[in-house]
């Protein structure tokens, strides 16, 4: 009886039980679970990172410096002066030019996944107060593959930059030419190269920042045609992809093969510039290329 009255007293001060609340408490206490989107494991050092922290650190692992892929809008925000970016040809969209199977569906998925209309965004911007043209490729749109719209947007950007005597800053990420648009994708390599050459012949600056991965037709065209070519640490950069080489040649690939550090050693990069330093680096470069200074 005494015990019972004690329990009653105890329960008297307790909040009435709510089954939903009970479920909440149990999950909180027994399974320390965080939703998938909230945390991510670093592929290099295996540290568990909160996505929020990672985004605040420009998607670079604070523990080991691993550079995670970054969407194009985030990059524009990181590089351009606040509110200075003015987009060009934002509405240009690809169509299924050669009736390739499932391409329409793929495009629809890509738009949904990336929130972009195509695999590159182009526009004018200021970086440290210096006006320039900027293009940033989008890894979440069919891995930045180059079809006719990507080629056309980049060509228009270089033509505009040539007309206005503006430097071009470009961030590349691409799996190469887009198979689904057939030969017309391949032709974009020549088309963009022609525009790069015209821009260059008029004495204008073009800086390319190669990010992970930059391969195939983009490497074999505008990515490797800049006056100054730098890369993010650890980025995969090559013409043929490593898996294709392993499969066709049955060759074991050396460690670090086709990574930024490898390309720097072989003489194909001016430098490796980590994300945190990129804005300052570009400001210095743009400043050094001001005519008459």
């Amino acid at each position: 009886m005494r015990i019972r009255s004690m329990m009653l007293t105890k329960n008297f001060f307790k909040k009435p039980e709510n089954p939903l609340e009970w479920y909440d408490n149990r999950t909180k206490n027994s399974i320390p679970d965080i939703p998938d989107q909230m945390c991510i494991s670093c592929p290099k050092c295996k540290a568990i990172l909160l996505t929020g922290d990672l985004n605040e650190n420009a998607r670079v692992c604070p523990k080991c410096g691993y550079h995670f892929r970054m969407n194009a809008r985030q990059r524009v925000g990181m590089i351009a002066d606040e509110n200075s970016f003015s987009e060009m040809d934002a509405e240009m969209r690809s169509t299924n030019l050669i009736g390739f199977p499932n391409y329409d569906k793929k495009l629809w998925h890509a738009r949904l996944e990336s929130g972009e209309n195509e695999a590159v965004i182009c526009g004018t911007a200021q970086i440290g107060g210096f006006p320039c043209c900027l293009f940033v490729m989008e890894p979440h749109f069919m891995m930045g593959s180059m079809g006719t719209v990507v080629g056309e947007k980049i060509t228009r950007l270089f033509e505009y930059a040539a007309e206005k005597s503006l430097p071009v800053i470009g961030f590349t990420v691409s799996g190469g030419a887009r198979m689904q648009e057939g030969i017309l994708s391949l032709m974009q390599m020549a088309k963009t190269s022609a525009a790069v050459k015209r821009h260059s012949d008029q004495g204008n600056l073009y800086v390319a920042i190669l990010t992970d991965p930059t391969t195939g037709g983009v490497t074999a065209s505008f990515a490797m045609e800049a006056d100054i070519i730098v890369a993010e640490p650890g980025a995969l950069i090559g013409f043929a992809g490593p898996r294709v080489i392993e499969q066709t040649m049955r060759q074991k690939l050396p460690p670090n093969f086709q990574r930024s550090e490898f390309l720097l050693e072989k003489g194909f990069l001016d430098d490796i510039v980590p994300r945190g330093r990129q804005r300052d680096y570009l400001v210095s470069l743009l400043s050094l290329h001001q005519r008459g200074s």
Partner: protein
Amino acid sequence: MEAYERLAASRAKNRPTGMSYIHNIFTDFLEMHGDRRFGDDKAVVGGIARLCGMPVTVIAHEKGVGTKEKISRNFGSAHPEGYRKALRLMKQAEKFKRPVVCFVDTAGAFCGISAEERGEGEAIAENLKEMITLKTPILSVFIGEGGSGGALGLAVADEVWMLENAYYSVISPEGCASILWKDSSKVKEAAECLKLTADDLFRMKVIERIIPEPENFGEVYENLQSELYHTLLLKEALKPEDMLQQRYDRFRRLGVPAQK
């Protein structure tokens, strides 16, 4: 003929290779070796010759005849030094005001460690960038396989022609099949999807001419000899700035989206 049959014909064992075209169409051919940077790539042959008496620079992919030669030429898949040799010879042609004729026949640029570490991507990119403003006429003829960037590296030209059974594609049909259906044996379907035949490309305005392949292959050489000669004369009559503008426009108009 279906795309797959053309593909098979373009790869046929007895199909004439680059050297046959050089010897049957030109006279006085002198081969020039090496890129003056690294080495001599045997997958690309180049030199100076006469076309109906006119001095020209001629460059060709060469797959080789017979197993031994095929191996030494990497089956016509060029390393970076192949593209750099080609560019060196084109610059030389520009200096001496000789037109350039290229014959394209490659499954693709060489795929391997050696090509990557010497900058395959950079070498092709450099060719695309320099050929577009080369101040002498360039004609490219696809005689067999036209595999992706490796073919384009010799095909930024004033006009691109294709033999009836040649193909030109962004990716090999085998590669396309293995990506699409995870099954590299579905080459036939992939070849159809990619629209890689001379007819398809002519319709898309990627090439200017289709060269018929009659029973007697000798007619192909005769035909090419006179067609190349007369076209080069027309190109040489153009003002250099007009010729370069037309070359720019030729590529500029490919794949312009309908809207905006």
